[in-house]
């Protein structure tokens, strides 16, 4: 059995906004805890040989929209491979980069960038930035869980007929007008949750790792991680959410 996990980190330098490197640290730490050797490949615009199917997990952090066209041009030849990859393999795409994998990015200067079309969503760049906490329920790899994080919304995501990744308990989510947070397609997660999502929510990291083990026909690790620190973190952040002033339409009214 192959005891090496291969992680693909897309465009770590071109796309780096919100301490997203934390997600790589979290997945690596969980892999190491389960006794695997974890290899992290940084994929950039100069990478000569890239095949999504070489990886067990792919992470794409959020980036500035100004770089999208160059990134999409790089990824386009691999579109079919990505479609195959996300059928069974976990992929995490956060923040603005959702747009790269969607159909269209409508910029506020009226220009349009065509995305990879891996998922049927469209994004619309906003004139103003919205930043807040984000708290929702989702299901991944057959397990329901709560996710806590932050959102810096540069653009709204219209997920059309796609399934949302989560259902909001608090936060702006995709548009500030629905209960939906992000989207999912196959085993790929497209979420507005920024920064070290997998650090703050190790229960999601564990499910991603369980899925990797299943894909590799490895026994699923049974010894649970001690998540007490992260549970305390979630509780105190939920306490902030419950007491703070908000100008959002309440989730119940959406």
């Amino acid at each position, binding site marked *: 059995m192959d005891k090496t996990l291969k992680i693909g980190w897309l465009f*770590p330098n071109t796309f*780096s906004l919100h*301490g997203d490197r*934390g997600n790589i640290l979290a997945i690596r730490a969980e892999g190491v805890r389960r006794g695997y050797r974890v290899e992290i490949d940084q994929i*950039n*615009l100069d990478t000569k040989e890239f095949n999504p199917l070489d990886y067990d997990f792919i992470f794409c952090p959020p980036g500035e929209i100004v770089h999208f066209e160059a990134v999409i041009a790089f990824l386009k030849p691999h579109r079919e491979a990505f479609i195959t990859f996300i059928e069974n393999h976990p992929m995490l795409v956060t923040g603005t980069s959702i747009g790269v994998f969607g159909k269209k990015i409508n910029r506020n200067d009226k220009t349009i960038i065509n995305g990879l079309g891996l998922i049927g969503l469209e994004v619309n760049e906003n004139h103003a930035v919205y930043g807040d906490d984000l708290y929702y329920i989702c299901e991944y790899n057959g397990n329901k869980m709560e996710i806590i994080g932050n959102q810096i919304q540069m653009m709204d995501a219209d997920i059309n007929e796609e399934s949302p990744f989560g259902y909001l308990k608090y936060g702006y989510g995709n548009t500030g007008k629905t209960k939906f947070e992000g989207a999912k397609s196959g085993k790929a997660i497209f979420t507005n949750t920024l*920064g070290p999502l997998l650090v703050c929510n190790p229960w999601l990291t564990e499910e991603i790792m369980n899925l990797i083990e299943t894909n590799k026909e490895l026994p699923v690790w049974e010894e649970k991680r001690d998540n007490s*620190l992260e549970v305390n973190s979630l509780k105190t952040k939920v306490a*902030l959410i419950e007491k703070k002033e908000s100008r959002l339409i309440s989730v119940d009214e959406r």
Partner: protein
Amino acid sequence: MKFYFALWLAKIIGAAINLVSRDRGTNLPGEKALVVDPNFVKNFKNIDYSKVVFITGTNGKSSTTNLVAHILKENGKKIISNLEGANLLSGIATILAKESTLTGKLKVDYYIFETDERYLPLVYEQLPAENMLITNLQKDQVQRNGDPDFIYRKLKEVINPQMTLILNNEEPRSRSFEEIAGRSVYYGVQHHDESFTKGSDYPTQACPKCHHDLSFDYYNVDSIGPFYCAHCGYASEKTPEYVVTDINFTEKTFRLKGVKCNMPYDLPFMFYNYAGALAICQEICDISPEQAAQAFNNFKNIGGRFEVLKYKAKTIKYMRIKQENPDTLQSALNIMASDQEEKMVALGLYTLVDFVPHYANTFYAFDCDFKPLIDSKVERYLCFSEHVSYDTANRLIYEGVAKADITIMDSDNIKEIFAEIDKAKTNNIYLITWISTFEKMKKFIEGGQN
């Protein structure tokens, strides 16, 4: 006529505020004047825009503005500047109203204005400065600013071929404005004892010209240092025209164009402010480095980010970081790491409370390299501040700190913070927290808790 009413109103409000307290209401007169006359700043009569300098960017604009103003004053120039950091249109309106005659005439040599990068287009619309220094464009205040490109586009609206830009040679985004400006002058800092590198898993950034990866030879300040793009060749100059060299931390001196200057603050982020200020003085105001040098002997920065408190036998070294700004946190970490004495580190990253909604964001800490700090004899860590202390502790744990070496306090209770400080064997305490908690701690000490 509207302008005169606005001006007189601003003067009356300004005088009234001065009677109550000289420290208050830096924006109010301008705010009211702009309500009466929305073109208030534009309507001042005799401003020579070639004598107006904007100093903008993410970090360092206040210190650079303060230093330029100080050097010019020391050299006998009459200037108008917004030294109190009122860097929006209303702040500039306030100071212009204060300094003008009753008919709106101004008689000064230079106008040196710190300008908020986000609101620069609004200021420029009324005050088309022909000179601008851009310190750097970094990740900062993401709740308002989103990403650096959001601010880049704001600045791009303003920069034009009539402008002279003073640009940080070693900061890729701001340096790239050279393509639009009529004339660009570059400043930088040579390698010094506190220059540093980061591991390969710390992201750099995208080349602003071709989107490929940028590489840095080293950093003088986080995200700032000699850089190059292997794809398109975009790179910093080896020796920019205004470069701070020979930085001597023992003697507290540096050189620029061969002129030796005293270094009033030996913090690495100040070196770029020194270089930028000297570039403005020479290029725009015709004050040479030789003439400027003497002003470094008595420069006191307003609102500095480093303070020392004495508490019992302990020395508490406070470093104020900017919220959501990895670069100022990295600078603070580097300062702590450079102290090889045993130390306690009290980290109070905090909930963002600038405006509604408040939120618990510490993700910028994952952009910072904590390893040198962890390798520098830390006796104990205290992670405090309500709602974010667990995340702060987790950042340290991911860098290799044992859970047992961290006290987590989900609170900002001053007494509890001091109780933890009391427990430390070392007297060497480093503190990072927001200004409000720091002020309370200061009062606690001043209240006889020594």
